């Protein structure tokens, strides 16, 4: 179990540090690479929570799919001049304080609710087949949301195609 804790702290520190770097970096490509490390760190956290299927979906779909899209767009608009420009907008102080206030509020919420969280269930020795369980739930109880999600993706695809069509 101590290994579990070590891995958790490693992944969370990695995630937070690369998230901060992502937000502060001037070069967009470096930002994208740091975001990829954050996503991989969160994928590691999912593994710790015995959610392997989600780990795989996160790696294939998120890092392997969406981030490739991001890198493609960054390369297509390789705006060298954006490096020279000022990266933060003028209301950065107000925004920063606002965000921290929001964070403090959630912090307070977790602090008060902490006691009512009951301890994590015993980790069963034989791990339940996670992928089968997710599959049963996905095609069983969550059939309707599954269909809605597929329609959402279809709409997004058509939208993206129309958007990127040349105006010729």
């Amino acid at each position, binding site marked *: *179990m101590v290994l579990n*804790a070590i891995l*958790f702290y490693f992944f*969370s520190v990695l*995630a*937070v540090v690369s*998230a*901060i770097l*992502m*937000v502060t970096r001037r070069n*967009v490509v470096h930002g994208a690479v740091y*975001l990829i490390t*954050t*996503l991989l760190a*969160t994928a590691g*956290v*999912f593994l*710790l*929570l015995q*959610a392997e299927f*989600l780990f795989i*979906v*996160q790696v294939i*779909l*998120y890092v392997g*799919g*969406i981030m490739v*899209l991001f890198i493609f*767009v960054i390369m297509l*608009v390789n705006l060298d001049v*954006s490096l020279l*420009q*000022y*990266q933060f*907008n003028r209301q950065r102080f107000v*925004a*920063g304080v606002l*965000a*921290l206030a929001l*964070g403090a509020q*959630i912090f307070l919420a977790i602090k008060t609710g*902490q006691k009512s*969280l009951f*301890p*994590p*269930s015993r980790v069963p020795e034989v791990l339940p087949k*996670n992928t089968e369980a997710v599959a049963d739930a996905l095609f069983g109880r*969550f059939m309707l949301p599954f269909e809605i*999600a597929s329609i*959402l*993706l279809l*709409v*997004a*695809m058509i*939208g*993206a*195609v*129309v*958007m*990127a069509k040349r105006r010729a």
Partner: protein
Amino acid sequence: MVSVDQYLWLSLALFTIGVIGVLTRRNVIIILMSIELILNAVNINLVAFSHMFGTVDGQVFAIFVITDAAAEAAVGLGIILAFFRNRETLLADEMDMLKW
């Protein structure tokens, strides 16, 4: 033992960083990436609670969050490309005209 609230602190940290990114950065792509970060923080919460309750619903919902993030990224990047092709700029505060 790693209890559930430590996962909550992690997702809180990522969430606040994401919000800071969205509010303070000018480059639209960085804003979009920060939104992805926020969605990820939400995912960690979902999976942590699903692990706590021993059921799998949280993970299934996390999958739906990821599909939504994919759809949103696709359309968002499409808009950025279309916008960039017309105005040659990527800065959020320069997008101040409803119709150009």
